[in-house]
């Protein structure tokens, strides 16, 4: 009887992974390692530097943790614990890098952006020695947004049709196209700028304008959109396609009325993520946008500066003057905010799986159903 008696069928068995002792082991090892590293690093040995300190701390921590684990558990379990802690560090470090770089640009940039005139004036009347309250980033913001709009206008239709080709038609041509698209996603950004410079400016005689920069950015955006969209389109269930064909739908009808609406959220996410990448591209615009201190609303004629180029110019080329460096950080502040806004938009829009309806869409459908 005792053997066959089971736990009440309704309550699922909870597998506890974390326990008090494992938390205490981690914490104890961390604190112990901190003390030992501080003692050795700062007091006994003649070292300095924050980076070296934390690297040493981490090594000592892992050793302490391994020793503590071996005291409590057998060898297999100890190895398991040490590896899981090491992998968790990888995840934590990735998060730390994002926070460190973005917040550094935001904190240093605040010094420039807190004068609101920074956002509403250009560099037309400001020289390298003029104080921070003169000069601003308006022309670069306008340039970035206009160039991004044009680049999206070019790369969105091309990227999504290329993705549809890969996912819906396939065939012998699809394999090289897929390989090239994947290879292009990691291609040097600089090459796109050189290509546009060589084709449009040296061979066809155009001058450096906003639209040249936009074309260079779109060369980088097309593969990103195509690759991400293909993944999304492949998630559309095959049964939907078959249902449409069974009802006599033609191929383009199926794509237009079934597949694209089903994965709309995912496609929007793909495009917005590519826009977030596109707005930060620096290397493609170095040769193509030209540089100006004035506001240029027309992307078709005259040089048009954008935010990355502004930072490049004022920090890298003229980086000796403090006010210029702070202005560069101000531009980086605006750039990071724009990227974060685009990224958050993509996340919010992409929250639902293909075919899953939002609350509002469900309400609307219910309403229509009641009416009929």
């Amino acid at each position, binding site marked *: 009887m005792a053997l066959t008696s089971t736990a009440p069928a309704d309550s699922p068995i909870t597998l506890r992974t974390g326990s008090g002792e494992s938390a205490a082991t981690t914490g104890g090892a961390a604190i112990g390692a901190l003390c030992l590293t501080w003692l050795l690093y700062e007091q006994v040995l003649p070292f300095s*530097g*924050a980076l*070296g300190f934390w690297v040493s701390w981490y090594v000592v921590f892992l050793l302490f943790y391994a020793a503590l684990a071996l005291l409590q558990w057998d060898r297999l*379990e100890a*190895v*398991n614990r040490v590896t899981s802690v090491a*992998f*968790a560090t*990888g*995840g934590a*470090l*990735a998060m730390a*890098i994002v926070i*460190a770089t*973005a917040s*550094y*640009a935001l904190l240093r940039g605040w010094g420039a952006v807190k004068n609101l005139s920074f956002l509403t004036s250009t560099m037309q009347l400001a020289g390298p020695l003029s104080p921070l309250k003169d000069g601003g980033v308006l022309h670069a913001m306008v340039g970035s947004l206009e160039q991004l709009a044009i680049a999206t206008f070019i790369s969105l239709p*091309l990227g999504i*049709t290329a993705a549809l*080709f*890969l996912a819906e*038609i396939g065939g012998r*041509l699809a394999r090289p*196209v*897929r*390989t*090239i698209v*994947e*290879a292009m996603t*990691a*291609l*040097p*950004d*600089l*090459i796109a700028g*050189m*290509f546009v410079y*060589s*084709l449009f400016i*040296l061979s066809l005689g155009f001058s450096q304008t906003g639209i040249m920069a936009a074309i260079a950015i779109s*060369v980088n955006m*097309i*593969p990103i959109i195509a690759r991400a969209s293909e993944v999304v389109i492949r998630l559309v269930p095959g049964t939907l396609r078959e249902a449409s064909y069974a009802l006599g739908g033609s*191929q*383009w009808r199926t794509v237009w009325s079934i597949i694209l609406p089903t994965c709309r959220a995912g496609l929007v996410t793909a495009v917005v993520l590519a826009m*977030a*990448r596109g707005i*930060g591209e*620096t*290397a493609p615009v170095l040769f193509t946008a030209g540089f100006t201190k004035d506001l240029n609303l027309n992307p078709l004629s005259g040089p048009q500066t954008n935010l*990355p180029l502004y*930072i*490049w110019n004022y*920090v*890298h080329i003229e980086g000796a003057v403090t006010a210029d460096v702070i202005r560069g*950080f101000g531009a*980086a502040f605006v*750039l*990071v905010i724009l990227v974060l806004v*685009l990224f958050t938009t993509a996340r919010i829009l992409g929250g639902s799986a293909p075919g899953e309806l939002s609350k509002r869409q469900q309400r609307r459908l219910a309403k229509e159903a009641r009416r009929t």
Partner: protein
Amino acid sequence: MSAAPAGVASMPTEGEDVPRVISARPSPADLIFRLILRGAGITVLLITGSILVFLIIQGLPALRAEGLRFFTTSTLLYGSHQFGVAALLPDSVAIAVIALIIAVPLGLAAALYISEYAPPGLRRPLIAVIDLLAAIPSIVFALWGFLYLMPRILGTDAWLSQHLGFIPFLHVKLPNTPQSYVGSTFVAGIVVAMMVIPIIVSLSRQAFSQAPQGEREAAYALGATRWGMVRTVVLPFGRAGIIGSGMLGLGRALGETVAVSFILVPNTSFNPRVLESGGNSITDEIATHIFDFGSTGISYLFATGLVLFAMTLVINSLAAIVISRSRSGAATAD
């Protein structure tokens, strides 16, 4: 009578399971639709092809003037038979290798954590963080690396060179002042590593998540710990993905421009001592000097860019093929 034998004779052929040939003639609208889609696919190929063509057009004068010497000369004097990629390529490769040495272990650890260890509630936010890391502009990394990381890492550089200086490439010949460590390929490699991490994490995570559930459970059922399961099931299944992501990361690292350009202190020839101040890279040379030497400079630098493009295209295409092979088994499950 004559009909029956004929019918009997034809019976076996009709009785065999010959699949019926199904032919559907697409409507004109569908034909146009397929043509447009095919056109988009061809356009992508054409763009890549024309990048190659237009780099060759501009780079040809320099390649013709220098011939094979262009690949072996290791000085950087424009237009006097003294310019070659051998002065730039080794440093570019050194930066990429340093970046990969840092990014591959870190990226794989993060990918394993996300796909195997993270609690389900933490998984989506972590994937979002990796996507965000890929979206942070390289110029923001450049600012961070140049103005925040570099002043703080000089002490570590000095310690490394003094205690591990017996390893040839960690040796520093210059006197031991902080100035001797500014703008080294090592620091550039660290910053490039941060930009390579998202590629490695996202690709290898996809590979890991495709390890079959049945074999994971089999490993657990045989008494494996989680690490035992990862070592015997997840890592072998993800091997092709790991190799592919590393290669794609290599292509990305070779082509990184802005951060490298911010950090490196220019140098006139290859410097194998990675901790020492001074270094070159193909991308930095192109970005900083393309307008400095007139049409000669443009030609030489486009020839250099051609070498970079050809290298990264080959590396990335191989990586894409390796990755798609690793995916092929799971593609039908989508």
